[in-house]
């Protein structure tokens, strides 16, 4: 296994991008990443693209070939990766393994979703395909409903409060204001969240990440070659992936995502670090409760104490572990296939010291956490500036 570095990142704006197609988005992110890395297209020998459901969102499958074609990289092996909302994170892991194995030397990883071409009911149904169709979705379960069940149980078990959930959204919106690519660049208050429209008790509209369009891309190469391209080398120190039961009801405990626990253990072990060594983290906050679960399952806080940690500001930009400096899925936006790759891009910016107003001081080790469905798949990465 070779060490692997991230040498380029590219992001589109996230949001309701009516004027941009699926193809426009992924091509724009890819070109930006190639420009950022300062490489030429001819050097690329592999492409991985995360996309959850281009088939349902824009009627386009065969995404791997489409991306190679649009990027002018015909001939290059191009693979589409799908793991629901963790598609981007998993595409990154596949690319990492491809370079680490010695099979590929310069790989571009993209993540993309164009979600606003369908009406919101269709988007909700499409997202629900990440749940268990036969045993959950057919009975009317949607993702807000599944996460509402988790939130209710977490409140019951650990005394997590409605206000603590809201505080996650308030924090992430405050961070989003500082991110020029964010879907929402608007501060919100605790009252805004508590008074927003009910979605599924106890979750309200401002507890939920939005339906967004967007794309992200990063470039990977062997660490030994990285200094040819950049002085600010970000190395992949750990990569973990795990699965869990597809349906939420099959779990022994719905207040924890076993996939997060296992994937992060795998990544920490490879990186030879502990959770307290992480300086900055991008976690999967598709709903406010998901961020609380994540910061507990990743080991930043003890189980049941995530809500309190958020309330005390420990996950804010100047807290003990800044979480979702990008604004997270909540404020930055959640174009599902793009999310995992965009998380990597944010951590790379933080580690390079290029995060501008949202820069975490002296960040050396960063973590990304990308969830599929209601935790049936999880991908965790640990990056370090060399």
């Amino acid at each position, binding site marked *: 296994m070779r060490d692997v570095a991230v040498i380029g990142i590219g992001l589109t704006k996230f949001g*309701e991008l*009516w*004027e941009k197609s699926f193809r426009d988005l992924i091509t724009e992110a890819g070109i930006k990443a190639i420009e950022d890395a300062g490489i030429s297209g001819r050097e690329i020998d592999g492409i991985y693209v995360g996309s959850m459901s281009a088939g349902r969102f824009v009627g386009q499958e065969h995404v791997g070939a489409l991306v190679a074609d649009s990027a002018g990289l015909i001939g290059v092996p191009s693979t589409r990766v799908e793991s629901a909302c963790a598609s981007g994170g998993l595409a990154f892991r596949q690319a990492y393994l491809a370079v680490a194995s010695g099979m590929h030397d310069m790989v571009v990883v993209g993540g993309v979703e164009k979600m*606003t071409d369908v*009406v*919101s009911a269709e988007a909700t149904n499409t997202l629900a395909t990440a749940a268990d169709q036969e045993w959950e979705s057919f009975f009317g379960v949607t993702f807000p409903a599944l996460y509402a069940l988790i939130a209710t149980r977490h409140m019951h078990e650990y005394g997590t409060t409605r206000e603590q959930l809201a505080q996650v959204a308030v924090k992430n919106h405050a961070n989003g204001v500082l991110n020029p690519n964010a879907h929402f660049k608007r501060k919100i208050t605790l009252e805004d969240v508590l008074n927003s*429209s*009910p979605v599924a008790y106890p979750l309200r509209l401002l507890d939920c990440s939005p339906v967004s369009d967007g794309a992200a891309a990063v470039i990977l190469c062997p660490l030994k070659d990285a200094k040819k391209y950049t002085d600010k080398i970000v190395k992949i120190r750990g990569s973990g992936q795990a699965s869990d039961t597809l349906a939420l009801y099959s779990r022994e405990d719905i207040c924890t995502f076993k996939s997060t626990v296992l994937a992060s253990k795998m990544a920490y072990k490879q990186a030879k670090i502990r959770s307290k060594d992480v300086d900055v983290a991008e976690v999967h906050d598709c709903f406010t409760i998901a961020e609380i679960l994540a910061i507990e399952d990743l080991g930043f806080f003890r189980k049941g104490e995530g809500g309190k940690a958020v309330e005390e500001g420990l996950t804010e930009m100047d807290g003990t572990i800044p979480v979702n400096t990008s604004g997270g899925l909540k404020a930055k936006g959640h174009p599902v296939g793009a999310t995992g790759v965009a998380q990597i891009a944010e951590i790379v910016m933080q580690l390079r010291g290029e995060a501008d107003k949202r820069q975490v001081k002296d960040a050396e080790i960063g973590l990304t956490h990308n969830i599929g469905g209601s935790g049936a798949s999880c991908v965790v990465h640990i990056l370090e500036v060399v």
Partner: protein
Amino acid sequence: MKEDVGIVSYGVYIPRYRIKASSIAKVWGKDSRYIEKGLNITEKSVPGPDEDVATISVEAARYALRRCNINPKDIGAIYIGSESHPYAVKPTGTIVGEAIGATPDLMVADYEFACKAGTAAIQNCIALIKSNIIKYGLAIGADTSQSAPGDALEYTASAGGAAFILGKDKVIVNINATYSFATDTPDFWRREARKYPAHGGRFTGEPAYFKHIINASKNLMEKIGTEPGDYDYAVFHQPNGKFPISVAKKLGFTYEQIEPGLICPFLGNTYSGSSLVGLSAVLDIAKPGDRIFVTSYGSGAGSDSFDLTVTENIKKFKRKNAPTVHELLEDKEYIDYGTYAKFRDLLYWE
């Protein structure tokens, strides 16, 4: 000297039945506080079982005629803009022409361009008057707008209309300039023989309503060298109570400029009648010299912008011969959702 061409008279008709947004919300298990806040609407008008675009147009046209002394026979064209003409084939305009005594020396055609067909009718009447083909033209925007039960549109889709007599004599409002902006943007539509329209959700906002109104308004002001501060009043199409406030702000108009013409919160969206009822509410209080900016919006999509100046003639204009928009709004009777369902043909039996 510049020739006066513009509005000679106007009239509005609003059915007297109202349903509250809260009554609709209750049926669908929605919290009306969020609806009222989200759409800025408290109630909407509902047409009675015997009312349609033809009856609404006749009422509005008769009110317009009551306010001026013109012979209906001098009306050379009737153009009615609506997306709920009672017939798919056969015009509404001939019914109205017959009812007000304007037949048979008459050009008639029904217009359809979602919510902006009424302002398109005004533009075409003006063109015919300027080319001396007709003496007076009657342009009407009216609708009994459709909305599928349970759709977000149900809170706003209402009924009403406004009629404008256009000409060169005793013009109360000069139409100084007009400009239109149109693109093929499918944000809202109803296919042939379908009962209810479909829409693209949030796509109806930014790339549709806002893009077209902003472009039409900016381009007209640029063309004639005006800016928002030059106007005493502004009226924008009102699909809900929020969009016009937001578009006015984006364009640089103040809330004070649009408030007198902002009728949607108490009336709903009368589609082809919407911006024209708003303009009528402004004319109910306008004084000589007042400058008014109007931009309509029709899905599909396009906007018509107008630069208007109220003339001295409005002093002698017999506004009181017909009810004002606010008088029509006050004359109301609330109905529950069951009655609404009966009136709007939502009930099903065999």
